[in-house]
């Protein structure tokens, strides 16, 4: 890299930094807070409904809440609404389990044209796959460590 390239790279980095400084961190955080908080509050309502109205066991309350939220995440993704929630809420839409649902449903729909097996079925795990690899993998380690220390 000669001096001119170096200079260009430096000024580019400065430009990037300037633009980054303008990134609206606070508004982004407020929107993420409202969106994520709202989804979790709906989840709390579902937990209460499962516990008091459906009289489910503790494990089943968790399963019921997960299934219903995943369903609505899928439905809203299918209708193109979750995309809008995501654009507004950012991480507030990505981090709840509805975002996990969105990460499965969006590629499943997007790759439908490649067929239901190598398109939809293969691609639905583009993001859920890594989540399960690291999640399930580390849970096995936790289980083995529990056995080792108890």
């Amino acid at each position, binding site marked *: 890299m000669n001096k001119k390239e170096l200079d260009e790279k430096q000024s580019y980095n400065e430009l990037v930094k300037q633009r980054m400084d303008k990134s609206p961190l606070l508004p982004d955080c407020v929107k993420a807070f409202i969106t994520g908080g709202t989804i979790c*509050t709906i989840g*709390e309502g579902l937990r209460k409904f499962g516990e008091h109205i459906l009289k489910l066991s503790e494990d089943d309350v968790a399963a019921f809440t997960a299934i219903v939220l995943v369903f609505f995440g899928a439905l809203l993704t299918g209708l193109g609404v979750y995309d809008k929630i995501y654009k507004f809420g950012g991480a507030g839409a990505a981090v709840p389990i509805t975002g996990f649902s969105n990460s499965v449903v969006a590629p499943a729909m997007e790759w439908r044209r490649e067929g239901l097996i190598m398109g939809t079925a293969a691609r639905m795990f583009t993001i859920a796959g890594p989540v399960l690899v690291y999640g399930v993998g580390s849970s096995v380690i936790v289980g083995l460590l529990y056995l080792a220390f108890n």
Partner: protein
Amino acid sequence: MDYIYAFLIGGLLCVIAQILMDLTSITPGKILVLYVTVGVILGGLGIYDKLVDFAGAGATVPLTGFGNSLAKGAIKAAGERGIIGAFTGGMTGTAAGVAAAIVFGYLAAIIFKPKTKK
């Protein structure tokens, strides 16, 4: 009161992710992997359940709660069935969410047409 704690803690967990996304170039997919792994670690240490007791769905709905369910399932099954349980427990604890995502994802792909971005 439960609803307020769920809103606050759930919102806060999302804000942490938003800060990571804004300040670093980490992608949302990697955030989900990070959150689930952190959830497994905090769940394995027995810390995350305290947050669940306090915030309910504010702690269980974000992906860290998914990780916590994985760890709790693995510990419970390991206690009952030993090494086999350590392998089966995590998936058992989270089977509902994963199966629901597969079924509804598949149905959505059949029913809905994606809005193609041209």
